[in-house]
């Protein structure tokens, strides 16, 4: 099957992720959506690497995973501390600062 379809899939996933970030309230979910976007990127990378016939894309995919993992560490730490303070993980509750 034509690998380009994987690209479309990647684009689709990316869009889903982005949409999720825009519409979901729960910080965790929002964060998951970001991860989804990253994975979409990975998919794209792998596909392109396949198309180009070089390994760069695949290597990058691994890097991306590592970075994502790091993000998780930091992100969860922040979100958890916020949750413990406010007893809510809603992104919208955290809006002290505005205007």
């Amino acid at each position: 099957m034509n690998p380009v379809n994987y690209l479309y899939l990647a684009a689709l996933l990316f869009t889903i992720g982005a949409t999720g970030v825009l519409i979901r309230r729960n910080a965790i979910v929002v964060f998951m959506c970001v991860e989804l976007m990253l994975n979409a990127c990975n998919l794209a990378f792998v596909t392109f690497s396949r198309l180009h016939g070089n390994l760069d894309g695949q290597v990058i995919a691994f890097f991306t995973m590592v970075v994502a993992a790091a993000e998780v560490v930091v992100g969860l730490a922040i979100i958890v501390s916020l949750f413990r303070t406010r007893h809510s993980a809603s992104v919208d509750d955290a809006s002290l600062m505005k205007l």
Partner: protein
Amino acid sequence: MEKLIALLIAAPLLGAVVLLVGGRRLDRVGHWVGTLLSTASFVVGVFLFADLLGRNAEHRTLIQHLWTWIPVEGFQADVTFRLDQLSMTFVLLITGVGSLIHLYSVGYMEHDERRRRFFGYLNLFLAAMLLLVLADNYLLLYVGWEGVGLASYLLIGFWQHKPSAATAAKKAFLVNRVGDMGLSIAIMLMFTTFGSFAFGPVFGHVDGATEGKLTAIGLLLLLAACGKSAQVPLQSWLGDAMEGPTPVSALIHAATMVTAGVYLIVRSAAVFNAAPDAQLVVTVVGTVTLLFGAIVGCAKDDIKKALAGSTMSQIGYMVLAAGLGPIGYVFAIMHLVTHGFFKAGLFLGAGSVMHGMNDEVDMRKFGGLRKYMPVTFITFGLGYLAIIGFPGLSGFFSKDKIIEAAFAKGGTEGWILGGAALVGAAITAFYMTRVMLMTFFGEKRWQPDENGAEPHPHESPKVMTIPMIVLAVGSVFGGAFFSIGDRFLKWLEPVTGHSEGHSPVSAGEITIATMACLVIGVGIAWAQYGRRPVPAVAPRGSLLTRAARRDLLQDDFNHVVLVRGGEHLTRSLVYVDHTLVDGVVNGTAAGFGGLSGRLRRLQNGFARSYAVSMFGGAALLVAATLLMRAV
């Protein structure tokens, strides 16, 4: 010899500086210092006069160049004095009469604690006036011109605590400023036309200039003259100027400053001769004013205002004469000099009367004063005879000549002008007789004022009467002295030039006519104020009378049109400046503020809406980039 000219001005100027800067420590001697220095100037004048007489007519012009005043590329103004017969005449008049009035003031201002300052101002005036008549170019003349304006401002408003005085002073200065505007524009016009504004070059190149330009210059000079000499339409300030101390009225607003306009016109003879239209306007202005002043003079009960009206009218005669051109110039000046004598004398007399009557000026509260203050009565009387042109006295000669010249203008103009002059003579006779009668004849009409102080009319001290006597002598013999053998004519001719007009009517006839007018005027006055007693309160009087009392509504006109209009204009402009000009700027600022307030709301604190803006931004970015490639 010409080195002395500067001294003429320097002496009184020094006096002014010393007296004004000197401070209180000079209070005791101040007035004598002032008088001394003005007399010194007079002496120098006489000295120079003698020198001039010693020369033959062609070489009677002395030039003294002091320094280059304003040297700018293509523009040269020097401080140079020119002493010729014309300015000599004025120098003697100014310093002579001036010194007398200084002397008079020593007595008159005795009880004023600011007497030193008064003399300072008087000296300042003398200096400025001398500068005016001695200047060799119009710009320097302009300095003197405004200088006398300043002095007059200071002296009219000398009693500043009186709001009326302060207002009158301001008014005088402003009205004069309008005239000065004319003078300065005239100077500019000369500069663009002749590339200079010194007498020599300008008069020398008159033939090179178009008549249009010359007419313009002439009219502008006339405007200046109107301001300074209180000619219609700029005459309104003179009446109010009487708020000043009487010596001031005598010196500045009768004898000297107000005649500066006549000097200007005669001095600019060359220009006017080449601009007949301008001359015609001059004569018209003169005629109108001589009637205007005379009429106003008839209605005033304030002795000084009446005399002011008469001054206006007499200067009208001079301007008329000056407007007639070579046939009139000499007589304009001659009348100017004689008028200097008798009008100054009259004012001093009036001052003396007021001095005796606790500064009362309303003639209806006088009456029968001749037995209380004989000297004043006699000197005043002689002045009176002189001004109405009683045969043999100075007014008779000078005014007669002017009327002749007016007729000599020829044609209908001649008849009109001459006729008007005659009528003027009649009215003059009337109002002067009125003044005379109301003041010195009839029974006494003064009552104790509100705090019961009955005025005790008394003769003034010597220091005041002597000047009056001297002036009276002058006003008696001056005219005769000048006219017999045409002394004055011969003296002045080289400067002003002279031509005998051919009058349609002979001199004799005119004299008779004048006499007739004189008799009529005096007669009517006698009928009104001599035979029956004068009412202590003015009767309502005819429409004309009432109008005349209000200076023929001239002030009302000014008030409505200029003052009110001006106030509205400025007020609305202040509003405009605040709302419009400022508003635009503040509005812009406010606009940005509002915009900021609105944009600020986008920052609503919700992370997700930030994400939306990012997402949208990204979309736009992508779209734009693609678009760029597309187009």
